[in-house]
Every structure is written in structure tokens, then in C-alpha cells.
């Protein structure tokens, strides 16, 4: 393989190096890349949102809705697009100091609707699903007396881990939850349990940190591969 002849690959490679220069220190190359990235990504997003959402979900239904209304005299569900259209315009009132407060109506709609979704979503995904998951893992209960029987009969690492992992999971969840008690002093039973909770939290954070290293290094390998192979053609 040879060095790339595509101008775009060269541009991409140059910008990649500009960003990496930040590792040494802040410098004009990084500043250039940073401002370019901010500008391009902000513009990109608006274009994409406009084509993927505003046109199909606002303009098109409004057009068909009003066309049927005026030609056939019939109101269709498409006309509901008036609602987000109006709310959107209310948001834009923020540009005019005198009527800027009207944007709060749209914000009330936006925040209110999300709170309803958040209440049900949190109960389902963050609370009930986690309680269920504490007891049942991969369609099996996390522990049973039978597993302890195995441990006694055939004592070894495997049976020991098999028996204690489940109870440890339940203990960990209870202890971590106890750490989050705010309205009592962490003393006595609550304090002791909360301390166990901290142990679980710290082991969990350490494990989670260690686990992430591989994914991050993969990203770096990806970029270095781009520079060495797509751009310079040193390796293939």
C-alpha cells in the first residue's frame, strides 16, 4: 500500500493530528480544529433534524392537513401538527424581549410531558426491573438452599461461589440502598450497613473503570490504524 492520494483523507488526517496536539498543550492547531468542529457539528445537527423531523413531522402533515381541509372540508389527524408548530413558534418568542415570557407555555408543555414519561419509565426500568433482576438472573433465582447443599456436599471453589454469589448480590443491593438514606444519621445498624454499601460501591467502581479500558483503547487503535494505513499506507 502507498500513501493516500485523496485530498479528503489528508484533510481528515491533518485534523486528527490537530486534535492530538492538545495532548501536548493548547495551541493554535487545536483551537482551529476545536472551533471548526463546534461550527460544523452544530450546523450538521440542525440540517439533519430539519430533514428528518421538521419536514416529515411538521411541514408535510400541515400541508396535507390543510389541503384536505380546504379542498374536501374535512379535518384530519394531520392537523394535530398545528400543536407542535404553535409551541415551536412560542419558543421563538424568546427572541423578542417583550413577549419572551410566552415561551414558558411551550416549556410547560415540554417539561410536563417529560415528567409523566419519567415517572412511569423510572418506576418500570429503574425500580421494578432492578428488584426483579436482583432475584432472577438469566431465568433462574440467584440462590437457593439447594446450592448451599451442593457446597456442603462437594466443597470447592465452584460450589462455594455458586452458593454465596446470590446472597451477596442481595446484600449488596440492600447495603447500597442503605448508603442512600438521607434523613437518618449513619449510625448503628444503618451506619454499619451503609459502610458495607460503600465497600460494594468502591469495588463496583473499580471494576467498571477497569472494564472500560479496553473499549477506549479500541478507539485509539481505530484512529492510529486510520493514520498508519488509510493515510500513510505503512501497514495493511
Amino acid at each position, binding site marked *: 500500500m502507498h500513501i493516500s492520494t485523496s485530498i479528503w483523507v489528508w484533510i481528515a488526517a491533518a485534523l486528527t493530528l490537530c486534535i492530538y496536539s492538545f*495532548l501536548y498543550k493548547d495551541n493554535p492547531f487545536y483551537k482551529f480544529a476545536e472551533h471548526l468542529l463546534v461550527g460544523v457539528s452544530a450546523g450538521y445537527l440542525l440540517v439533519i433534524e430539519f430533514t428528518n423531523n421538521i419536514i416529515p413531522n411538521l411541514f408535510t402533515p400541515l400541508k396535507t392537513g390543510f389541503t384536505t381541509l380546504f379542498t374536501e372540508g374535512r379535518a384530519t389527524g394531520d392537523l394535530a401538527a398545528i400543536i407542535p408548530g404553535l409551541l415551536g413558534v412560542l419558543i421563538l418568542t424568546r427572541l423578542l424581549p417583550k413577549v419572551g415570557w410566552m415561551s414558558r407555555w411551550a416549556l410547560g408543555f415540554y417539561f410536563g410531558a417529560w415528567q409523566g414519561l419519567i415517572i412511569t419509565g423510572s418506576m418500570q426500568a429503574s425500580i421494578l426491573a432492578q428488584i426483579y433482576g436482583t432475584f432472577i438472573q438469566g431465568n433462574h433465582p440467584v440462590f437457593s438452599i439447594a446450592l448451599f447443599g451442593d457446597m456442603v456436599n462437594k466443597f470447592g471453589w465452584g460450589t462455594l461461589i455458586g452458593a454465596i454469589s446470590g446472597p451477596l448480590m442481595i446484600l449488596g443491593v440492600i447495603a447500597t440502598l442503605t448508603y442512600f438514606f438521607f434523613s437518618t444519621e449513619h449510625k448503628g445498624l444503618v451506619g454499619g450497613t451503609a459502610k458495607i454499601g460503600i465497600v460494594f460501591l468502591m469495588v463496583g467502581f473499580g471494576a467498571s473503570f477497569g472494564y472500560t*479500558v*479496553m473499549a477506549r*483503547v479500541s*478507539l485509539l*487503535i481505530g484512529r492510529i490504524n486510520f493514520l*498508519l494505513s488509510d493515510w500513510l499506507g505503512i*501497514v495493511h
Partner: protein
Amino acid sequence: MNFFDKFLKIDRRYIFILVAIGVVIPLVFPLGLAVTVSPPVKNVYDEIESLKPGTPVLVSVDFDPSTEPELGPMTAAVLRHCFKRKLPVILMNLHPGGPGLALAISDKVAKETGAKEGVDYCFLGYKAGGTAVILSIGRDIRLSYPADYYNKPIDQIPMMKNIRSYSDIGLVVTLSGSTFPDVWVAYAHERFGAKIAAGVTAVMAADYYPYLSTGQMIGLIGGLKGAAEYEKLIGVPGNGLKGMDAQTIIHLLIVLLIILGNIAFLLMRRQQRRGEQTRPSGA
């Protein structure tokens, strides 16, 4: 400032240099660190080894660029193995983000192994529908794919002449960063008895072990590590082994830094304590 103190406050840019070297060197000069092949990966290899030359293998590239760093290398390794064993490969996608990747990977491997499009492999492209596509192949692959990616009718592709459904296919390999392997098992295997092997990201691998013990999957390749193992089995180092070399070096580098940092920290603390003890009281 003594030596330990200086070491503990070392400019982090030295660490950045170590990281950069640790990644670049194995990519340019593969080190070939020992990789132990795990049974699920070996099973995929053995299954492909056991197929008679000429038995078609269906490779479904069901991932998009976001998981390419992990799944690309194993896709290349499996293709290489099939081409070497003279097993015709049918490539397809259930993920809309897949065709570009499937093309790039198959082109590259074909060029290196001398495999020919239309004879040794064909590319059918993406079809929407997921489950429906999998089910239709159980009757006749032509139902979903009357023509290949380039709009050439299937019946005009020499290698596809005698291939109709799963019963004509030796093995299905799905490479996916999402739940496509479940669907392949539930329909292609359960309904039509197709043999399924899957390649998934490292994070997902544990979720699929149950399928291995029940025999619903004949094997599993997980993450870059799995790709490295597969490359070792076929004896052609690729991005999997190189990547794994880099991974191993960086992981060891970080662990080493932590250990050295702590040794320096503990020694310094001991010195400080001693200093406090020898100092006259009240000072």
C-alpha cells in the same frame, strides 16, 4: 522534593507518550503475544474445518460502523478461513448499516486470497425485515433475494445454482452488535434446523453462553479477543491479533503505572512518618 515525590508528580505527557508507543508498535510490528484459544471460538473453527469443500456458508454482516472495530476483524478472519477451505460464501446484511462494511471487508479478503466474486462468494446486500428475511430463507433464498447487491438475478450466479434454503447451507455465521443472533437462533435454527455460529462484541458475549450449552449455537466469537483467537487458529495474523497485542500492552502499562505509583506513594508516606517521628516535638 525527593525522588518519590517527583515520580508521583510526573508530567502526564510522559504517560501519553508511553500509551502512544504501546499502541503504534504492535500495529506496525505485530508481537504475536500468546493468545489462548477458548472453546467457543475453537468450535466455530472446527465446524468450518469439518465442512466438505463446496459446502456453502452464509455470513450475515449484521453490524454497523459503531461496532466495526470489534466485529470487523473477526468477519475478515471467518471469510479468510472459508475461502481457504474452498467453501462458497453467501454474504448478506440484516442491518442497514452493514452493506458498506461487508463490501469493504470481503473485497479486501478476496484480493488477498484470490477469491472471485460470483464463484467463491456472492454479496446479496441488505433486506429490511429481519425475522421475515430469516424465515423466507428457510423456504427459498430467492423469496427475499431474487437478485444480488448488484441486481444480478440469483439464478445467473454460478455458485448459487443449487442453493435454495438452509438445508443446502452448511453453516450460518451472524456477526452482530445487537440482538440478531437471538433471531437467527429462534427462527433459522429452531424452525429449520440451521447450524448457527455468532460473532458478537465482548460485552454481549456472556449473554450468549446459554445458547452454547443448549447447543442452539455451535460456537461463539466474542470481541477483539475472539477475533485474535480465530486469527491464531487460521494462522494469519490480522487486526484482531495486532489489536489484542496493543490492548495487552496498554492494560499492562496501566497496571504497572498503578503499582509503581503505589510503591512510591507508600515509601514516601513511610519516609514522612519517620520524618515526623525524628523531628523534635513541638516543631
